[in-house]
C-alpha cells in the first residue's frame, strides 16, 4: 500500500502556501495600476475570491473537477462534494492518476484550491474600475462552478478528455490563463468601457504597489509551477529553473520592444514582461529544458506587448491587459509545449514529444485542440453568465458611482488618508 512521502509533502505544503500568496500579489499588481479611487475595489475583488472560491471549492468545485467522470471526460461527479471521502485517511490512489499520489489527497485538494482561487481573480484586471460588487460576487461563484471546474476536469483530472487525449498542460496554461483571459474578454464585451477610455490617461496610481505585486507573483509562481510536479524531485527543479528563466527573458523582451517603440524602458514594462514570461512558461514548466525557457519567455514578452495594441484597435477596454497578457501568453505557452516538450526532461511524455524534440505535429495538434476547446467553452459560457448577472443583479456600477470611484461607492471606504483633513470624519455609531 502506497505511503505518503514526507519530502514531497513538505514541498507541496509550501507550494500551496506560495500559490495562495499569489492572489494578494495579484491584487497589488492590479491595484497599483488603477486610479486611487478604485484601488480598494480592486483589492477587494481579489481578496474576496480567497473567501468565496475556497468555500465553493470544498463544497462542490473540487468534486466537479476531480470526482469520477460523469461521462465523456467532460465533468466530475458529486463523489467528493463537501469533502466527502476527502480526509486524512483517503487512499493515495483515490483520484485515479496513473501512479498513486505521494502526498495526502487532502493536500492535493488544497493545492488545487489555490489555483481555483487565483484563476477568476485574474479576470478582474480587465474589468477594473466599473464592477458592481454584488454582481461580481455572483459572477465569481457561478464562473468557478460552471466554467473553472469543468475545464480543470478536462485537463487536470486523469478522467478528463483532454488529459486522456494527451494534451499537456503542466501547471495551467489552458485551465488558468487562457480560461481567465478569454473570460475577461467576454465580460468586458458585456459591461463595456470605462467612462473616458481611451481619451483619458488613467495613469497607475502607485507603481511601487504594482512592483510589490510583481515580486510576490514571481516568488509564488515557483510554488505554482515547480509545485505542480507534486514532489521534491528533478522535475520540480527543472520547472523551477524554467519558471525563473522565462520570467527573466520575458522582462528583457518586453523592455527591448518598449525601448525601441517608445524610447523608454519602464518599470511597469519590466513587471508586465516578467508576468508574460511566467504565464507562457506555465504549461511548459515540467516538459521543457535547456535554454527553451529563454526562447519561450522572450517570445511572450515581445508578443504580449504587441498584442496589447489590439484593444485600442478593436476598441474593447481590457483595462489592465488580461487578454493581452494572459490569453495571448497562455496560447503562446500552450503551443510552445508542442514545439519544445522534451522526453529527456520528462520521460512521462515519451512518444508525445514536441516538434523540435523528436516528436511530430501530433502533440502540437493536441495543444491546438486544447486551446480551441478552452477558448470556445469558456468564452461562450462566460459571456452568457455575464449577461445573466448583468440583466439580473447588474454587473456594472452607475455612472455616478464610477465617477465617485469603487472604494467609496461600493465599499464605503477611502484607500489613503495621508494628510490631516480626510481623517476628520466625525460621529461613529457602533
Amino acid at each position: 500500500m502506497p505511503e505518503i512521502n514526507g519530502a514531497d509533502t513538505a514541498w507541496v505544503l509550501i507550494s500551496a502556501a506560495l500559490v495562495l500568496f499569489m492572489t494578494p500579489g495579484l491584487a497589488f499588481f492590479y491595484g497599483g495600476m488603477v486610479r486611487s479611487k478604485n484601488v480598494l475595489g480592486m483589492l477587494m475583488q481579489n481578496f474576496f475570491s480567497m473567501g468565496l472560491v475556497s468555500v465553493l471549492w470544498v463544497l462542490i468545485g473540487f468534486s466537479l473537477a476531480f470526482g469520477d467522470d460523469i461521462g465523456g471526460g467532460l465533468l466530475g461527479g458529486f463523489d467528493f462534494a463537501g469533502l466527502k471521502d476527502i480526509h486524512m485517511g483517503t487512499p493515495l490512489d483515490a483520484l485515479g492518476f496513473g501512479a498513486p499520489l505521494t502526498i495526502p489527497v487532502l493536500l492535493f485538494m488544497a493545492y488545487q484550491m489555490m489555483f481555483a482561487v487565483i484563476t477568476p481573480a485574474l479576470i478582474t484586471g480587465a474589468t477594473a474600475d466599473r464592477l458592481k460588487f454584488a454582481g461580481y460576487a455572483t459572477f465569481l461563484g457561478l464562473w468557478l462552478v460552471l466554467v473553472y471546474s469543468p475545464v480543470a476536469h478536462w485537463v487536470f483530472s486523469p478522467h478528463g478528455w483532454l488529459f486522456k487525449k494527451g494534451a499537456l498542460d503542466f501547471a495551467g496554461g489552458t485551465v488558468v490563463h487562457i480560461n481567465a483571459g478569454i473570460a475577461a474578454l467576454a465580460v468586458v464585451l458585456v459591461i463595456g468601457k470605462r467612462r473616458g477610455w481611451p481619451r483619458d490617461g488613467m495613469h497607475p496610481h502607485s507603481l511601487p504597489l504594482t512592483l510589490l505585486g510583481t515580486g510576490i507573483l514571481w516568488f509564488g509562481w515557483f510554488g505554482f509551477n515547480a509545485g505542480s510536479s507534486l514532489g521534491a524531485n528533478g522535475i520540480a527543479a527543472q520547472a523551477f529553473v524554467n519558471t525563473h528563466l522565462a520570467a527573466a527573458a520575458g522582462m528583457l523582451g518586453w523592455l527591448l520592444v518598449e525601448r525601441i517603440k517608445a524610447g523608454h524602458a519602464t518599470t511597469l514594462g519590466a513587471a508586465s514582461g516578467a508576468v508574460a514570461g511566467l504565464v507562457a512558461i506555465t504549461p511548459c514548466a515540467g516538459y521543457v529544458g535547456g535554454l527553451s525557457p529563454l526562447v519561450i519567455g522572450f517570445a511572450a514578452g515581445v508578443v504580449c506587448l504587441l498584442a496589447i495594441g489590439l484593444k485600442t484597435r478593436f476598441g474593447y477596454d481590457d483595462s489592465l491587459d488580461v487578454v493581452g497578457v494572459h490569453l495571448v501568453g497562455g496560447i503562446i505557452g500552450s503551443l510552445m509545449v508542442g514545439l519544445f516538450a522534451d522526453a529527456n526532461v520528462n520521460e512521462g511524455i515519451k512518444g508525445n514529444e514536441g516538434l523540435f524534440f523528436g516528436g511530430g505535429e501530433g502533440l502540437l495538434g493536441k495543444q491546438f485542440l486544447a486551446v480551441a476547446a478552452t477558448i470556445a467553452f469558456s468564452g461562450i459560457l462566460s459571456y452568457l453568465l455575464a449577461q445573466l448577472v448583468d440583466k439580473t443583479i447588474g454587473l456594472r456600477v452607475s455612472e455616478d458611482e464610477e465617477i465617485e470611484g469603487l472604494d467609496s461607492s461600493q465599499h464605503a471606504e477611502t484607500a489613503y488618508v495621508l494628510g490631516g483633513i480626510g481623517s476628520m470624519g466625525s460621529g461613529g455609531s457602533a
Partner: protein
Amino acid sequence: MKLVTAIVKPFKLDDVKNALQDIGVNGLTVSEVQGYGRQRGHTEVYRGAEYKVDFVPKVRLEVVVGDADVARIVDAIVAAAKTDKIGDGKVWVTSVDDIIRVRTGERGPDAI
C-alpha cells in the same frame, strides 16, 4: 488684472482646462482641496460602524487674467464645470495689483 479662483469637481478639471485653452488662456495653477458645503460628504463604514465624512475632494484653479478677459473666462469655467448637481462649486474674482514673470522679469499684462 484679476485673479479668478475656481473650486470645481475633480473629474471636471480636464474639461475646464480644455475650455480655457480654447479661449486662449495659456497658463493656470491648480491644487487639490477639500470642500465643505451644501453637498454633504459621504458615509464610511469602519468595522461595522458608520462615520460621516464632511469634506468632499475638489480641485482649485487659479488664473490671473487681464481685466478685459475676466467675464469670458468666468463664463467658460462655469460652462465647463457645470453638472447641475449640487457641489458644482464656486468661482470668485479678486483684484491683482501686479504680476511678474520670474523668468523674464516682465511685469503686468505681459507677464500673464
